[in-house]
């Protein structure tokens, strides 16, 4: 029973991290209909920046802030410089540009920081709580991870629902031509969408870094899980991304705990295929219309 509770708690923690990555992918998908395969490399870069800032200033909070700021900047920059020119090209063109960017960022990080994994400080203790004399696999830092992801999901929801910027973002994503006719600066909204997405990704990077260690390729599995989670939930639905990520986090945690870690990638495949066979556009499809 304690094993079950431990697995559930660690599933919630990893689900929270997947949720942040999935949200980043969903934001970009809604804005520009592109799967950002460079997301894993982008959040790797912002986490390295956070690590450098934490080392030089000694403050976790400033480092976290640096990750957020560099994420915003990087997302906006990537959209303006690389994605805008291929926005009207065949849809796979932007995917290849993103893969090229992934390669460039990974190798740049390797050039500057080398391939040796580095430790990244957690925000709080990683020693599990003692509840009623038993030691559970859930530490103050895990509470922090879950709360931060809940906060960022909440802020994004409020931003999209209750602000003028959010309305313009939704309009630009829903129908860019009509939005443009109504005076929405669609290009700027796409830039803002990418910036917000990269910021969300940067949060995920800083949160997960203490457990995966900091190295150029160490965030690739998080990116893949985030993508699977986003597809599970339905790429058009931010709440779907969060639910999909939680389901995936729990499922993978149980499989890893009860059946062995070698089966985890296969379990992810099985979960995804089963869900997609029943619901081909994810758990939370926002529209039944299909572009033909």
């Amino acid at each position, binding site marked *: 029973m304690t094993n079950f509770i431990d697995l559930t708690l660690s599933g919630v923690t990893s689900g929270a991290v997947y949720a942040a990555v999935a949200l980043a992918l969903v934001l970009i998908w809604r804005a520009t209909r592109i799967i950002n395969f460079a997301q894993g490399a982008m959040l790797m870069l912002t986490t390295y920046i956070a690590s450098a800032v934490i080392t030089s200033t000694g403050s976790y909070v400033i480092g976290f802030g640096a990750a957020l700021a560099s994420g915003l900047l990087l997302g906006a920059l990537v959209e303006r410089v690389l994605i805008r020119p291929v926005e009207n090209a065949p849809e796979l063109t932007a995917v290849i540009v993103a893969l*090229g960017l992934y*390669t460039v960022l*990974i190798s740049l990080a390797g050039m500057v920081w080398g391939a040796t994994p580095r430790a990244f400080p957690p925000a709080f203790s990683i020693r599990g709580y003692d509840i009623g004399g038993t030691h559970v696999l859930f530490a103050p830092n895990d509470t922090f991870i879950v709360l931060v992801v809940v906060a960022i999901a909440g802020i994004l929801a409020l931003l999209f629902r209750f602000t003028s910027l959010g309305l313009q973002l939704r309009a630009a994503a829903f129908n860019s031509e009509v939005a443009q006719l109504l005076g929405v600066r669609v290009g700027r909204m796409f830039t803002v969408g990418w910036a917000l997405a990269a910021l969300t990704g940067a949060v995920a990077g800083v949160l997960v870094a203490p457990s995966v260690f900091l190295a150029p390729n160490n965030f690739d599995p998080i990116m893949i899980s985030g993508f699977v989670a986003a597809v599970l939930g339905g*790429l058009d639905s931010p709440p779907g991304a969060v639910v999909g990520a939680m389901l995936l986090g729990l499922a993978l945690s149980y499989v890893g705990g009860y059946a062995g870690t070698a089966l985890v990638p296969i379990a992810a*495949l099985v979960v*995804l295929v089963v869900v997609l066979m029943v619901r081909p556009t994810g758990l939370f499809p926002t529209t039944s219309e299909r572009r033909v």
Partner: protein
Amino acid sequence: MSSLAAAVRTGHVGTSTLARSLGLVFGVALLLLLLSNWLGSYHELQLADGAYYFAALAGLSVLIGLSGQISLGHGAFMAVGAYAVMVLVGHGWALLPAICAAAAVCVVIGVPVGAAASRLRGPYLAGATLAFAVGLPALADRFPATLGGENGLTINPPAVPAWLGANFSLEEWQAWIACAGALVVLFVLYNLVHSGIGRSLRAGRDDEIAASLCGLNVARQQTAAFTISAGCAGLGGGLYAAVLNLATPSAFSVTLSLSLLTGVVVGGLGSLAGAAWGAALLVLLPTWTTSLAGSLSLNTNVQGNLPFAIYGVVLIAVMLAWPTGIHGGLRAAARFVSTRRRRR
């Protein structure tokens, strides 16, 4: 003379697709034969690499370009093909039947995967096939006794037949095997693209509803296209096994699937010539960037990563300059030149 040129350009020479495809295959075979005679053993291996990449890329290119389905999982089919050859040759099979069986195994696996894929669209299909590419190589770790675990499986290199003479190198023989497989793929896909099946696939891609109203079973066609491209990827994997004599899970990671997609799109989607460009790119670009980085005196971190950085920059640059890939870019350039000449 000019009417003949026009007829050739539009493809109406009065000959059947079969005859044209045979002509193409024999022409390319002759070229490859001359090339393999002229190349040294290192470049012969590169030719062999290009040939097995071509087999997988051509299948994927037809799938994406013709039926509009995206697969990020073709590296997994290559893995199945390579492991099938490894296991069968390990059980005493000859290489040729083992390679054929590898392609057949992938066709058999391709049917259910393709049937599942025909229900999915765009990014959902991409996600499912990506999970396939991640999940399948993990099987090698799960069954270390048959599949060799992390270290993978090895076989002895194929024996060079005696009738080719004592001076015939192993590399040239491997290049011949791989090129023969690639030519089979070229023949099959050329006929497929120019057949009624190819036309109905394009109809289903362009407008699914209209195509079904015309009586086409789009889902079944998409399953067929997926199955054929899975078979091509399996054949490519089998050829890989014949050339490298080694299959490890790490060789068939997600990176391979993504490189296949990259080769297809950068080469030019939907055309067999584009697949050839993509294969050349996947083989030559890493070699060139590595030797370029090696010729500069840099510190280890920079030197080790520079090839990948250049690779990424080239991908981005090609896509920004020619969004339709190398083949599309060259065709546009040729069209530009010919209209200029005609105006004059």
